[in-house]
């Protein structure tokens, strides 16, 4: 709920990106305060993933600013943004299949500056395996993992860098009800650690349970912003996003 007085962790303003004639993100602006979880919602094709790609440096914006801890990162290379404290997961889960779980997580922390001493890095990997529920699987090849374990591993890799800001792109999608409960608890525990999160999600129960605030996009534009309960009952949001059907899922 809080919007602290200091510099927001993430501040986006006037963000725009077009692909040919299609404006995928149009004049998008919002801010996320320290320790908040912000939901980024909208129907398929509304520009959420493009927005994440602009923030994480996969795409260069045509216009606008993206400030991470007050520093403009718009147009920087992905690896620089990663080293400045932004980590993400992907809509289609991406783990390193040819490596074991331990190496997957090591990839997340080995290239952060300053480099950790080896012993400390290994300790942090153990902590992270434990944290996401993969303790004892450290030597298991990532290719052998179940779907939820792949998601866990991807999250552990993102957390390995001790990010200030974590972008989760439909991380809870495709989980069964009991796995969803585990996933929600896991993300909530990250918030307790003070990690600021932008959550792109279609699972409304998770959005209600986790997000302090939400921004809703439609056709590249922001159509609503505010406290989660207010936004989800907003008439324009219900119309654009849910096609007029109330979401009691």
């Amino acid at each position: 709920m809080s919007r602290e007085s200091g510099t927001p962790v993430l501040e986006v303003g006037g963000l725009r990106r077009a692909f040919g004639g299609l404006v995928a993100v149009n004049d998008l602006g919002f801010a996320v305060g320290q320790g908040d979880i912000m939901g980024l919602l909208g129907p398929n094709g509304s520009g959420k993933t493009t927005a994440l790609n602009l923030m994480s440096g996969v795409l260069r914006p045509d216009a606008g600013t993206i400030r991470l801890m007050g520093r403009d990162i718009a147009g920087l290379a992905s690896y620089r943004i990663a080293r400045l404290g932004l980590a993400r997961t992907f809509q289609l889960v991406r783990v390193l299949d040819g490596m074991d779980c331990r190496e997957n997580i090591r990839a997340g922390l080995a290239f952060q500056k300053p480099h950790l001493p080896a012993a400390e890095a290994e300790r942090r990997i153990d902590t992270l395996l434990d944290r996401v529920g993969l303790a004892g699987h450290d030597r298991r090849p990532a290719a052998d993992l179940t779907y939820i374990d792949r998601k866990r591993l991807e999250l552990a890799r993102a957390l390995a860098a001790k990010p200030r800001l974590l972008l989760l792109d439909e991380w809870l999608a495709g989980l069964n009800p009991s796995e969803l409960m585990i996933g929600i608890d896991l993300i909530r525990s990250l918030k307790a650690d003070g990690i600021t999160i932008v959550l792109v999600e279609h699972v409304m129960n998770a959005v209600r349970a986790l997000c302090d605030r939400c921004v809703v996009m439609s056709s590249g534009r922001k159509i609503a912003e505010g406290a989660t309960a207010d936004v989800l009952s907003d008439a324009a949001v219900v119309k654009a996003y849910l096609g007029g059907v109330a979401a009691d899922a």
Partner: protein
Amino acid sequence: MTARTAGLGALALAAFVLLAFVPRLGNAYYLALAISLLQYTVLATAWGMFSGPTRYVSLATTAFFGVGAYTVAVLGEILPWPLVLLIAAALGAILAAIVGLSTLRLSGVYFVIFTFGLTELIRQLVVWFEVNKSRVLGRYVFVDITQADIYWQLLALTAAVFLLGWLIARSRLGFALRVIGEDETVAKHCGINTTFAKVALFTISATVMTLVGAIMAPRWTYIEPSIAFNSMISFQVLIMALLGGAHRLWGPVLGAVPLTLLFELLSARFPNTFTIILGCIFLLIVYMLPRGVAGLFEKLAAAPGGKTTQRVAA
């Protein structure tokens, strides 16, 4: 683990010392064959150092090999030999860095085609320069280097390449390249400067290839572009590295040795149908041994014990 590493290191050292005595056998044919074996071992290992972890298939081996050979053809008689090698290495490194910076953004088949085209481009440039500027098409290489000297230089380069490859594989750079080979997008989001990592290793690999070309040049007394830039070298090195298994440092040598011997035999017995047989061998390798001989060894090593190597935690 360290005891095992030390043991393997001692074994490798003993092998190199033993191999150093090959020229003392006094048999010119065996020496020539040994030179071929070392040449392809170094080329295939250098190829695997870059293409193994990154999975970028390069057909530029010939380009770098040829630049090395031509450096010797032009400067061999003018400058002292170590300086010639140094200049060749520098030229190869500079060329590789330029090529790397401009092409490693390409991926998949585009990179393959570009590297193949690069060889042709450099060959044509050399022809144009020689015909229009130097007014010669071929050059004689008169340097005071014996076959045994060539062999020893290649052997030293082989040792250097294995040592370098071993060090890189254990380094942060080596790990970065494996992550890039697995998923380049993830690599970038892990904070890896992927362009730097790829260009660095491409340059190291190309410098070694250039040195092989330079060391080999005195073997021919006459050099012209079609000899120095023979694109068959690129393909043979590729086949050898794939047969051996490019995902391991010691993989390509397992392909280079049998195939060099086989090519030697085939080109002597079937000079006219050699390339057809070569094509069939290539198809068989890709179908039967997708992870190369090294992959086969790993499988055999893993099979009897079953769970001992990999899936302890499962």
